[in-house]
């Protein structure tokens, strides 16, 4: 497509999005999960495959369940790892290089949202509104700025919808795009694949029965299956399904729907849509005839179905909803336009509330007393009524050294070659950025050949899936005598739980005015004799 054919406002939106996604991309170092992807990508450059062991350190957050005896990573799909590895190959082993491809995919998502709506419904205002909403969605921006699969998942989800709305029934390219986008979604994260594809397929057949010719649908289904079968065997899906827990399904459901209305589709809008489509649930006559609204219903049902499937998985995390942010932007954009056409003042008010504030999300939930605010949240976070973009810009322009940056700097300057570091969390960023052997974290049972030279007992207690203390915590409490054998070094930084975690429940844009807990690092009192 020629650039000069594009509607100019979208260029402004994309320029703004590019700035928000790329500016200060390496202000903060990788946090634990990003460092897992980055560490594996680093090993890809050496071994050609994602190995969890590089001869010094082991990458694990599941007590070593992620790999077999040969240390080949089999826990999560490899696409994100290879994307990061390619970026490291081109740009060097830097934070910026690791995050860049994912941020660019976030930008592509915003463009694709615009293109999907404009091309299929011919409504440039709606398209622009949806693209702007996604650009202003701070949780989406935070996730897209991570060296992790989030934006990749959103991009493949959008590509599959784009292909679905093209003439895939008779043309080869849209059919190929549909097949590849779904297949690659599996290799991005199979949880996203299962939770998205099944509802999308069922809702699609229900809402667009004539658009599913048997032969073409069968061919695409088979081709996709052929694409994903190797992955089904390679990644330990069977082993992971054993950690499913029936008792947590209702809690997961309520948490996911809570997340949806707290950050993605405001509760009043969700209720309005439910009321508007109330007849759909028992009669096909209730299905809207207007193509735009029908598509909105399609997206809405995909989101609901997605959450239902997701709630079966053991871990309930906001990250598994990130691929639905573009869908929500399209829905909310449509609502803003309806409000504008209904009443100009309401339209402007609604647009202001949704573009620049999170008030329509949180204020009604506060009225109902159903907001979710974990212990450590403060008023400068997305869990309180705020101007999210202002918080986000404050972080971009006044970056502060987070907990991981402080630890990295400390050990880069204080530790000596060959030192062994034990930490209860944040082991993977240290492994990536420093040359030392780092044990502990969520790696599982510890059996170090010698007592660690450094011990970091983080303030936040970490439990395993069964709510029992992580092995590193236990090891420090039971096997080490910190008071007798180590010198405690108190440092003037806050021991915040995660660092640059994008989850809106945890992400800090500005440092806490009064740190809750300060970092204490323990240094072994007797220096080892064999180190020069």
């Amino acid at each position, binding site marked *: 497509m020629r650039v000069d054919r594009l509607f100019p406002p979208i260029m402004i939106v994309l320029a703004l999005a590019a700035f928000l996604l790329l500016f200060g991309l390496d202000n903060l170092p990788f946090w634990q999960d990003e460092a897992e992807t980055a560490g594996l990508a680093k090993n890809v450059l050496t071994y050609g495959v994602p190995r969890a062991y590089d001869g010094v350190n082991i990458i694990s957050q599941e007590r070593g369940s992620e790999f077999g005896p040969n240390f080949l990573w089999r826990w999560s799909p490899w696409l994100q790892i290879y994307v990061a590895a390619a970026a490291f190959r081109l740009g060097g082993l830097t934070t910026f290089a690791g995050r860049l491809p994912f941020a660019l995919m976030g930008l592509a998502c915003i463009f694709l949202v615009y293109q999907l709506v404009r091309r299929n419904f011919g409504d440039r205002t709606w398209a622009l509104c949806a693209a702007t909403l996604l650009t202003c969605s701070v949780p989406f921006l935070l996730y897209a700025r991570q060296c992790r699969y989030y934006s990749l998942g959103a991009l493949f989800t959008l590509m599959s919808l784009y292909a679905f709305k093209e003439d895939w029934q008779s043309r080869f390219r849209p059919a190929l795009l549909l097949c590849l986008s779904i297949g690659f979604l599996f290799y991005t994260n199979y949880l996203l694949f299962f939770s998205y594809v099944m509802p999308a397929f069922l809702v699609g057949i229900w809402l667009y029965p004539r658009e599913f010719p048997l032969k073409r649908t069968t061919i695409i289904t088979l081709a996709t299956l052929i694409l994903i079968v190797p992955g089904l065997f390679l990644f330990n899906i069977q082993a992971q399904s054993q950690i499913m827990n029936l008792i947590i399904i209702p809690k997961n459901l309520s948490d996911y729907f809570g997340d949806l209305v707290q950050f993605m589709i405001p509760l009043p809008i969700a209720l309005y849509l439910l009321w508007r489509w109330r007849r759909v649930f028992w009669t096909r006559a209730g299905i809207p005839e207007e193509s735009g609204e029908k598509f909105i219903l399609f997206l809405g049902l995909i989101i609901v179905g997605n959450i239902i499937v997701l709630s079966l998985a053991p871990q309930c995390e906001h990250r598994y909803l990130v691929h639905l942010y573009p869908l929500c932007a399209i829905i909310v954009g449509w609502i803003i336009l309806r409000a504008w056409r209904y009443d100009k003042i309401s339209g402007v*008010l609604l647009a202001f509330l949704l573009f620049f504030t999170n008030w329509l999300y949180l204020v*009604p939930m506060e009225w109902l007393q159903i907001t979710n605010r974990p212990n450590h949240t403060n008023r*400068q976070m997305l869990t309180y009524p705020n101007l999210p973009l202002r918080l986000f810009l404050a972080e971009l322009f006044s970056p502060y050294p987070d907990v991981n940056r402080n630890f990295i700097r400390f050990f880069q300057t204080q530790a000596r070659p060959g030192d062994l570091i034990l930490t209860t969390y944040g082991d993977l960023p240290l492994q990536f950025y420093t040359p030392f052997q780092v044990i502990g974290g969520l790696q599982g049972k510890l059996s170090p050949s010698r007592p660690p030279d450094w011990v970091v007992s983080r303030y936040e*207690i970490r439990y395993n899936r069964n*709510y029992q203390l992580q092995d590193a915590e236990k090891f420090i409490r039971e096997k080490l005598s910190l008071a007798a054998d180590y010198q405690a070094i108190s440092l003037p930084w806050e021991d915040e739980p995660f660092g640059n975690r994008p989850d809106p429940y945890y992400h800090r844009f500005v440092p806490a005015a009064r740190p809750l807990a300060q970092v204490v690092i323990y240094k072994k009192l007797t220096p080892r004799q064999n180190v020069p």
Partner: protein
Amino acid sequence: MSLNSFTVKKFLLTAGLLIVLGQGLWQLPELQDYLFPVEHVELILRRASKECPIIEGGLIMLNARIDYLTWFQAHNGPDQKVSADRLLAFPFSEAIRPLAPRYFWHINIYLAHKNRAKVERKLRHLDALFKNINGDFRVGSAHDSPAIPAKTAAVSSSMKQIKQFQDQCIHYNAKLIELTKQLAWLEDNGYKK
């Protein structure tokens, strides 16, 4: 649809959005800090008065679940009839107990640990908050009162409240340790059938 109803709906929509706008503005942290500057100690007191009942509720729940598991273990299995009291307290667990006793056991141990971890985290958080206050002024027992600087009646009252909360937390901690031991014993002795 009559014109009147159409106008009323528009009015209601605009009014609703304006209320959200107004409340959002009102709750902006900067505006609140400017209009109603609240002492750090006051914030911690509010937090503590909100968290203490939650911790207490968590401990009561944990205690009840441990009693339930102890009863189950003492009566050696699922043969006991379903009780209305227990059905009210633990509807899901009591319903599945006769059908799947092993699953019942594991799920209740899991839930007890979850409950314990939640209480432990909250207590740790409150403890850190109270330690944080010590930067503002010392809070302690009667014998270190000479170290407390002269203060207003309001500050003195806050200190008293904080001391009460700290004592409460000591009590909660002791209770939690006791319940944790009981839970560990139950887990070690396991499901017998």
